[in-house]
């Protein structure tokens, strides 16, 4: 129903902007309905303005800014409607060290209500995982899962 859509849209927009400002240390972002009159069909526009920069077309954002902006939206949606689990496949690849830290801090906070499955090559992100699974192909072409670290186990011989 259009009522439900408007309620979700407005709440998500609020969370999106809050989380964006936390990740970027300022700036502003949001979604806009292209046709306010027609809640049931209207498309959704999106804008994002990193701190100190002018508001521009989202296509001009850098690779890292783009990844962080969409991630802020996703966490904004989860704040409105928690998801039991979430799979992130190398979402941290375009991020610099400072933004990887902001990304991992945020998923750590959100992991109270959501189980995250995070695929990564980034050493810092690996360190923030509670459980770490290694996948190997000892036999060429055949994947095997080995578990390397459990909650509560220090970085002993596990890693």
């Amino acid at each position, binding site marked *: 129903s259009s009522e*439900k*859509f408007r*309620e*979700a*849209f407005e709440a998500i927009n609020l969370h999106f902007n809050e989380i964006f400002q936390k990740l970027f240390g300022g700036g502003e972002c949001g*979604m806009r309905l*292209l046709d306010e009159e027609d809640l049931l069909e*209207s*498309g*959704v*526009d*999106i804008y994002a303005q990193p701190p100190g920069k002018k508001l521009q077309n989202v*296509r001009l954002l850098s690779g890292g800014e*783009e*990844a962080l*902006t*969409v991630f802020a*939206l*996703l966490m904004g*949606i*989860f704040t409105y*409607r*928690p*998801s*039991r*689990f*979430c*799979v*992130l*496949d*190398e*979402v941290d690849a*375009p991020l610099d060290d400072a933004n990887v830290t902001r990304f991992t801090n945020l*998923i750590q906070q959100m*992991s109270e209500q959501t*189980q*995250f*499955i*995070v*695929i*990564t*090559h980034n050493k810092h992100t*690996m360190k*923030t*995982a*509670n*459980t770490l*699974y290694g*996948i*190997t*192909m000892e*036999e*060429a*072409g*055949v*994947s*095997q*899962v080995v*578990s390397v670290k459990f*909650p509560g186990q220090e970085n002993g011989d596990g890693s």
Partner: protein
Amino acid sequence: LRLDRLEMTGFKSFADKTSVRFEEGISGIVGPNGCGKSNLADAIAWVLGSGTALSLRGEKMDDVIFSGTRTRRPSGVVEATLAFSRTDNEPIVLKETEFSGEVLEISRKLYRSGESVYTVNQRRCRLKDIHSVLEEAGLGFASYALIAQGKIGWFLRAKPVERRSVIEEAA
């Protein structure tokens, strides 16, 4: 409701029966290029019916069945199961069938012949039923919660109408 484990046999490069337990918090998946990390993520999307052939990087649906190596023959069938443990024990009723008990197991099987079978706790059902059972059980799952490799920028590049569908799923 929490995600307990993924089991799969013959899914892409996972030729042998593989089981992965998921704990609370953050589970990291690591390994060299080409070892099978994204295949594991594809298996989760495939069981939940949210992966089309295209988004699973194949051309046809049976590209998800283990296709063999230099030393192994291809598999004839693929099966993957997601097991959830329930925190509240209210029985879920679906089309006169009652699902009770601690665990909810969603499975999908596909034969080379093209026959595809979904089951919930070993009882056959349709994909639509899976979504309603998960909804009833409070999984609140949506396909936007699976971000495939290299696709994080999807929402910004999508058409305005496509973006709308994400908000509708969340509403």
